């Protein structure tokens, strides 16, 4: 028994080492599945220090297959990670797998990752949202949007926040709808994301919302609208920027934003430096 244990440990060390050194070699799907199954308990060890080796072993592989030219290996790894998400595991392990997909996941991962948006564990939900924010496929943006109606509070604001960096015009209707949310944090998040998207539709939705904004929601919407003007100015669209600056006047608009809008106008007119 003792001899068998020693052989098992030795073979694990050799196998891990061979994985660690052979990162440039094509990924064997079944071998990887075996390795991850062995690493999984360690990746969620109650002793955080013991998570180091199994987590880093997986991450080394994931980082390596992200190299341009290794798309086939990346697809294999993602396939295995997606299948693994269904396995029974503790939250730290699932968070770790979702984090790897945040860095290398593609459209084939979206459905599996999106399931975790409604997990009972907050760290898993957040890791899933961050992964979808970063996965470049349009399906990821669609998954974030789809999750909004059944969310509220912090999760809803976070989902709205994640749509901004993605920059997809397809998110504008959902975000525009959130500009009238009862939760001002959600309004803030939606306005901020619309400003990041910055398409004509996004800008128009901010303009429309500003007109009807309450005292509480006017400030975040106006800040976002100002952001749009600044970005337009940076890209040489001075007329469009000036139109926004002209909208950002009047007592309803907070003083600081009016001042910033005035600065923007003076800059376009060549009266002050950027």
């Amino acid at each position: 028994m003792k001899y068998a244990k020693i052989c098992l440990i030795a073979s694990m060390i050799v196998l891990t080492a061979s994985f660690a050194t052979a990162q440039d070699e094509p990924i064997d799907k079944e071998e990887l599945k075996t390795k991850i199954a062995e690493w999984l308990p360690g990746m969620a060890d109650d002793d955080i220090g013991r998570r180091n080796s199994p987590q880093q072993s997986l991450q080394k592989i994931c980082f390596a297959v992200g190299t341009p030219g290794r798309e086939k290996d990346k697809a294999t790894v993602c396939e295995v990670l997606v299948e693994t998400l269904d396995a029974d595991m503790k939250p730290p392990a699932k968070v770790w797998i979702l984090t790897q997909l945040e860095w290398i996941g593609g459209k084939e991962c979206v459905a599996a990752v999106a399931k975790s948006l409604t997990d009972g564990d907050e760290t898993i939900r957040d890791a899933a949202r961050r992964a979808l924010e970063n996965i470049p496929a349009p399906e990821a943006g669609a998954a974030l949007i789809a999750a909004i109606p059944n969310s509220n509070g912090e999760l809803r604001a976070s989902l709205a926040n994640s749509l901004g960096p993605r920059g997809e015009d397809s998110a504008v209707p959902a975000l525009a709808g959130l500009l009238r949310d009862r939760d001002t944090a959600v309004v803030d998040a939606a306005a901020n994301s619309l400003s990041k998207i910055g398409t004509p539709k996004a800008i128009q939705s901010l303009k429309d919302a500003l007109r009807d904004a309450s005292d509480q929601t006017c400030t975040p919407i106006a800040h976002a609208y100002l952001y749009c003007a600044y970005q337009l100015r940076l890209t040489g669209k001075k007329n469009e920027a000036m139109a926004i600056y002209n909208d950002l006047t009047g007592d309803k608009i907070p003083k600081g934003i009016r001042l910033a809008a005035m600065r923007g106008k003076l800059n376009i007119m060549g009266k002050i430096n950027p």
Partner: protein
Amino acid sequence: MRRTNPMTRRGFVLKAATATVAAPMLVPGAALGADDGTPANERIVMGSIGVGGRGSGDMRGLMGFKEVQMVAVCDPVPEHCQRAKESVDGRYGNSDCKMTADFREITRRDDIDAVMIGTPDHWHAIITIDACKNGKDIFCEKPECLTVAEGRAMVNAVKRYGRVFSGGSQRVLGDYGNLPREVRGGRFGKIQEIFVNCGGPSGDCYLPKVDTPKGLDWEMWLGPAPWRPYHPNLVRGGFRPYRDYSGGGMTDWGAHRFGAAMFAANIHKQGPIAITPPNGDDVKQLTFTFAGGLKMYHGGTNNITYKGTEEDHPVSGDVDMKTYRGRGGLLGDFVECVLTRSEPFRDIETCHRATSVCHLGNIAYWLKRPLQYDPDREEIVGDPEANRWINRPMRGPWTLS
């Protein structure tokens, strides 16, 4: 000492900027410095956000300027906050300093003109942008941001709202005597190679779980970083080795030294076009290549070594080089620039370019592959997975605005 004066410098400037021409108004004596010699329009009311080791040092440094009135401190670690409050109250001989664990209670105060940010790196961008949106000027410790995208967002916010922002590297001018001026003046001719010595990249954190002390707002300390259990090292300045909060030695000393090197070589508003990690073969050191061929290496025998077309060529006469305004080094430069609405020595674009170099170096180290970079678009080219590291999703509900 003095209570908050409604005619603070901020109120003065805001009124001056937005008021229409009116009849001359009576100016209170306090506004002319009748009580302590500092007129209201030369008084900078400040709050300090992040008052652990380094932050409290900056706070005390700023309080050394008669123009600065510190009125509030913020830290999610109660001991840090309490010590900082005692320091402020001791300086002014009262107990007026307010404490909070939430930076928004400082950035949203109308009576505060400026903030000092001494938090761990992962908070710098969010707080800076929030301060800008609320009309505050900012002194922010280095490294000024956690990612390339954060740096650019900070630049945009500072410019959008017309704020004065100073980054926190006092070493660019402070550590090397006359060397920056001499390098800029051509002591080594045209610079071809620079060797910069600083620590290595950050990595993942495997510190064990420790029960969160009562009263410490761990959620607020973590902020946008992924959740993990508390460990005391993290709140005592030991966060720097860990990627979720900082960039390791690459950004800790790298923000100083890469920044100093780039400034001296006059490439401090540029970015590299290639970043090549050591490959165990012909590339021995992480190498940044700039347009025009200049190479900057991570590693060297001295802090910074320059090699150029000349061996060592004395420099005489004036050298066109930005330096501090006012008196009192980097902090004095910030104070002077707030009062005169000037661009500080370590302006936000310079901060961003210096820290970008550090971040790109880290990405190359983590991924162990060379990167091509477009410094104008600030994108890693031809490597979409590497480019995902330019910006990092934040833990909810935090985001870059």
